[in-house]
């Protein structure tokens, strides 16, 4: 193009560059031959950054590419039930057991746990700071008329929250109870903006606390225990599911190395998750 000195060379050159880039973009092989494993998981494992350090060693050693679909636990379990993913990593024990007993999931393994905490504004208008009875704390929040933001999305956190209201024999309804229908990160932001209270998993809280005008007010209630499990989709039900890949991922998550990565994953020196598959690997 530079050969032609008479005009239009720059625009012609630019055009050619654009065309070549364009063609390269379109024809770029879109991950054609790599083996793909579809993992549906919760926003808490993905947004916290855990998967970003837990999966690359697995992908490197196995050549399997893990496609992470981060949704609420309810949606993740539904994806597994309908065979649209190969494996799930979630936290809602009852719903997990139902997936297995209904014959859609196999080989469930415990992976790790963390706990839920109730967070709220520093001023704490409901006066729940320091309580370790989560159910009683929710009662005080409702009685004080403070705003409570619920996930409202059938996620594991949402299921846990509803169990707590049930245990408190209260029906969370009214103007003070806001169902957001969004992920944990968004709900924490809303809670901060509204000066409200919410229930969150500790992992997402630790990952986001520096950006929030909120404090942990209630923790330590055994009812706030939050175990995570991994389940493979039943290959007998969906024949082309990547069962081998799923089992290798389960193997990795519950291996000594995998469990150590989970134990070592900390924010501000605080562990986000405590591994449970290999007890000796726990800190």
């Amino acid at each position, binding site marked *: 193009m530079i050969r032609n000195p008479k005009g239009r060379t720059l625009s012609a050159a630019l055009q050619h560059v654009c065309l070549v880039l364009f063609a390269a973009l379109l024809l770029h092989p879109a991950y054609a031959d790599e083996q793909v494993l579809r993992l549906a998981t919760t926003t808490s494992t993905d947004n916290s950054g855990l998967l970003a350090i837990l999966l690359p060693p697995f992908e490197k050693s196995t050549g399997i590419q893990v*496609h992470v679909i981060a949704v609420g636990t309810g949606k993740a379990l539904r994806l597994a039930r309908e065979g649209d993913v190969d494996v799930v990593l979630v936290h809602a024990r009852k719903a997990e057991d139902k997936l297995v007993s209904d014959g859609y999931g196999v080989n469930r393994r415990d992976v790790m746990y963390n706990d839920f905490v109730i967070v709220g504004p520093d001023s704490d208008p409901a006066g729940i700071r320091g309580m370790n009875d989560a159910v009683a704390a929710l009662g005080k929040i409702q009685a004080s008329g403070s705003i409570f933001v619920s996930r409202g999305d059938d996620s594991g956190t949402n299921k846990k929250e509803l169990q707590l209201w049930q245990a408190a024999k209260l029906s969370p309804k009214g103007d003070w109870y806001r169902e957001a229908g969004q992920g944990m990160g968004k709900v924490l932001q809303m809670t901060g903006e509204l000066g409200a209270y919410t229930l969150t998993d500790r992992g997402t809280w630790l990952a986001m606390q520096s*950006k929030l005008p909120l404090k942990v007010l209630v923790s330590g209630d055994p009812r706030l225990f939050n175990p995570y499990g991994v389940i493979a989709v039943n290959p007998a039900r969906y024949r082309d599911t990547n069962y081998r890949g799923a089992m290798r991922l389960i193997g990795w998550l519950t291996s000594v190395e995998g469990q150590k990565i989970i134990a070592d994953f900390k924010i501000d020196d605080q562990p986000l998750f405590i591994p449970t598959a290999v007890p000796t690997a726990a800190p």
Partner: protein
Amino acid sequence: MGDLWAANRQAFHLLISGDAELWTIIGISFRVSVWAILIAAPVALLLAFALARLRFTGRRLLISTFHTLMALPAVVVGLTVYMLLARNGLLGDLRWLFTQKAMVVGQIILCFPLLVSISHATLREADQRVWETALTLGATRWHAMLTLMYEVRYGLMAALIAAFGRIIAEVGSSMMVGGNIAHHTRNIPTAIALETSKGEFAQGIALGFVLLFLALALNFTLNLVQSRSDKLS
């Protein structure tokens, strides 16, 4: 306000640093949307031409339908495509859910009504003598149609740009049928949604700037092509 300032700085930094992650996201965004336009445009142009030239029963109804479908919410498209492509859906055997193909399908549905409507308006306003002259001079109907389209190429180009603008920026359908999988189906809009949900507002705004900048570059290129073809003709 500090956040907005940080976002500006971060956007600038992202653009000049050639961040690999960012370019993967940009590549996915453009590949999906360009494929959608490439597949949708020829069919949409033919249909628009038929609507402008031919007289048949149901024509007006069809035009109104396409006008209405321009307002189709992206999430509704996403949900519909999702239900079609899910394993238990009508087209579940394709196993396209959570792939770029699924995103392309959603975006085709989103941009098609827009392409038909604007192209139809353009072709209807075109000087019909071009068509008749071309036929008189012995052109086939096909060639006469191409000649007519060439006459109104700016209007048709505007249709393409508007359609591209709609789908490159849509998040509802891509999020639902693509699943926002890193390095695979995460495009600019879904990445912005993710960063926002993580509270990384600066990163989200920065990605928004990147999108705008690239749209500008694309429009500039198209402009260049146009002005060059003007000089030649």
